[in-house]
C-alpha cells in the first residue's frame, strides 16, 4: 500500500460526518460561486462610494492613487509620477494590450519579466476590491508576475468599472475570465515587515511604494 492509500485510509476511517459524504462534497463543490458565510457590509459598496472606499482602504495600507480621465492620460501621468519620486524616466511592463497603443513620449519602456534591479514597474490589474483596497492581478505575458514583486516602485492601472465590492465578486470574475492563470495575486499595499525590532517598515522584499492609476471610464 502506498503512503497515499495509508493516509487516505486513516482519514476515511476517522472522518465522521454523517449521511452520504460523497454527495455532501459534490454539493459543496458545486456551490462554488455562492457564499454561504456572512458577507461583511464592507464588501457591499456600490457606485461612487465604491471608488471612494477603494481609495480610502488603499490609503490606509500606504498605497497612493491618481484618477485619470482616460488611458491616454497614462503616459504623461506616469512620467510625472516618476519625476515626483525622483526616479529615472524608465518603466518595465508586460505585453498588456491596453499599453500597446499608447504614446509613451520620452519614457524608456522595456517589456518582459522582472530583472534583479527594477526601480519602477507597471502592471495592469484584473480587478480592484473596495472591501480592503486590494488589487487582483493575473499572471501571464500581459502581466509578468515578477513585475509585481521586483519593482521598487510598483505602478498599477485599474479601470473604475473594474472595481468590485468584495472578494465574492472577485472570485466570480476570476471564474468568468477563462483559463486560470498560474498565479492570481491579491495585492493590498506595498510590501512590509515588522521582523526587525517589532517595528513596521515598508519595502521588505517587494515594492517600497504602490501607486494606482484609476482610469475613470
Amino acid at each position: 500500500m502506498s503512503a497515499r492509500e495509508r493516509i487516505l485510509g486513516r482519514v476515511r476511517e476517522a472522518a465522521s460526518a454523517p449521511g452520504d459524504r460523497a454527495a455532501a462534497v459534490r454539493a459543496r463543490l458545486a456551490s462554488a460561486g455562492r457564499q454561504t458565510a456572512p458577507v461583511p457590509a464592507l464588501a457591499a459598496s456600490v457606485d461612487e462610494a465604491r471608488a471612494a472606499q477603494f481609495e480610502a482602504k488603499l490609503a490606509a495600507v500606504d498605497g497612493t492613487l491618481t484618477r485619470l480621465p482616460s488611458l491616454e492620460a497614462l503616459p504623461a501621468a506616469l512620467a510625472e509620477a516618476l519625476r515626483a519620486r525622483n526616479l529615472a524616466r524608465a518603466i518595465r511592463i508586460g505585453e498588456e494590450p491596453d499599453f500597446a497603443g499608447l504614446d509613451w513620449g520620452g519614457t524608456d519602456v522595456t517589456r518582459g519579466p522582472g530583472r534583479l534591479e527594477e526601480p519602477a514597474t507597471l502592471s495592469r490589474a484584473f480587478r480592484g476590491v473596495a472591501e480592503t483596497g486590494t488589487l487582483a492581478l493575473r499572471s501571464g505575458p500581459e502581466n509578468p508576475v515578477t513585475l509585481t514583486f521586483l519593482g521598487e516602485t510598483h505602478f498599477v492601472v485599474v479601470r473604475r468599472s473594474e472595481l468590485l465590492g468584495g472578494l465574492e465578486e472577485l472570485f466570480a470574475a476570476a471564474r468568468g475570465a477563462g483559463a486560470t492563470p498560474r498565479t492570481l495575486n491579491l495585492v493590498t499595499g506595498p510590501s512590509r515587515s515588522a521582523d526587525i525590532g517589532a517595528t513596521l517598515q515598508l519595502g521588505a522584499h517587494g515594492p517600497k511604494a504602490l501607486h494606482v492609476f484609476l482610469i475613470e471610464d
Partner: protein
Amino acid sequence: MTLQSTTPEFKRNARGALADEKLQSALAFAKPGFSTKRAQARAALPEFDDLRDAARDLKDHVLGHLDLYLEAYERRVIESGGHVHWAETAEDARRIVLEICRKAEAKTVNKGKTMISEECGINDFLAENGIAPVETDLGEYIIQLRGEHPSHIIAPAVHVTVEEVREAFRKAHGHLPEGRDLEGLDTLLAEARTVLRKKYFEAEVGITGANMLIAETGQSVIVTNEGNGDLSQSLPKVHVVMASIEKIVPTLEDASTILRVLARSATGQEMSVYTTFSQGPRRAEDPDGPEEYHVVLLDNGRSNMLGTEFQDMLRCIRCGACMNHCPVYNAVGGHAYGWVYPGPMGAVLTPSLIGVEEGGQLPNASTFCGRCEAVCPMRIPLPRMMRSWREREFEKRLTPSATRWGLGLWRFVASRPALYRLGTGIASRALAAMGRGGRIAKLPWAGAGWTDQRDFPAPEPGGTFMSRYRPDADGRPS
C-alpha cells in the same frame, strides 16, 4: 524523526527565559502591539464573530469529509500540470523534497516561511546533503543566521533585539565594508533586501508553505506581507509547496471566509499585503514562474487526531492570536516550549504530534485563563484540550510523583465533606490572621512561590462560604 524537541525541559527552559534580560526586553516591546491591533480590527468589522462561527463550521465540514476533499484537490492539481506527493512522516517529506531538489540539480533552495518545513527539519537535512537552504522571510533569515528556530509562528524573530540583528548581519555579510553604518532600522532592512534579492535569482528550487489548499481549483494559497514567498516561488524553475493535509478548503468563497478572519486575528490587518493563489507550473506562454509545481502533503500524525477529542485542533489556521494573548507565552517566549509550535496551540498540537511522553509538559504551561479560546478565530477549545492532555499525562503516570501525591491527598480530603470543611476552616482562619489590610505579603512553604512575586489576598473574616451558608427547609439559599 521530526525536529528534535527540548519540550521535556520546559520548566528549565522557562526559568532560563524569565532570567534572560534581552529576551524579556524583546517580548515586552512586541507584546502590546498584537493584541491592540487585533482588538481594533475586530471592532471595525461588525460581522467578525459571525465569520468566526462560519469559519469554524466550514473547517468542521472539511474535517468530516477530508479524504474526499483531498482526492478532489489532488485531481485538480494533476489536471493543471502539478505533482502531488504524499508524506506520512517528516522523514518521508524530507526524502521527497531532497529527490525533487536533486532532480533539479539544486545547489541553493530558497524558502518562504513554512512551519511545516520546520516540523520536518528540512533545512538541516538539505544542508547535510550539500544543498544550501536560504530562508527569505526577514525574521526567518535573521534566526537562520543565528542558528535558531522560530519563537513565534508568524513573528519568528520576535525574541531577537535590534542589536542582535546588527551583530548577526555584521557576521554574516562579510563581503560588505566592516565600518558601514547599520544604525537605523531602515539600513538593516535595506541590507537584508539587497543580500536576499541576489539569492532569489540564484536558487534552482523555491519552497513555500500553504495557508490553504483549494479543492475546487487545485490552487495553493500563501498569505504574506513581505513578498519573499512570491519571489521564492516565481523565480526558481521548481516550486515546492509543503502543506499539511488539513489545509484544505472546498471553494474560493470558503477561502474568503478564512481570509476575513486570518489577518485580523494575526496582525490586525484587514488583509495581508500578498495573498497569492498558485496553480500548476507556468503556462506555455508565460515569461516567468516555475516550470515545475510540486505539492508535498504531510500527515505526520494529523490523521490520528481525526475523530478524537483533539480533532478541533485541526481547524487551526496558524494566526498566532492564541500566543499573542497568552500570559505564559508572553512571559517565557516561544523557545521555552522546546519544539516547533509554541503557545496554547503548541501546547495542544505538540503532544498530538510527538507524543504525550515528550510533549506532556506543555499543557501544564497554562493558567487556564481562557484568553486563547476567546480570541481564536476558529473557536478552538484550547483549554479543554489542554485539560484532556493533563488527564492523559496523569493516566500514563507521567505526572511527577509530588503532584500525584498532592492530588491524591486533595482527593482524599475533598471526598470527605466533614474533613474538608474542618481543613478549609482552619486554613481560612490562619490565612485571615496572617492578612494585613486584606493582603498577605509572605506565605510559608509552597505558598512562597506565590508571594515571592505578588501579595496573596487574605480571606474575609467570618469563616468559609460553607460555614456561613444557611439553606432554608427546601434546601434553597435563604
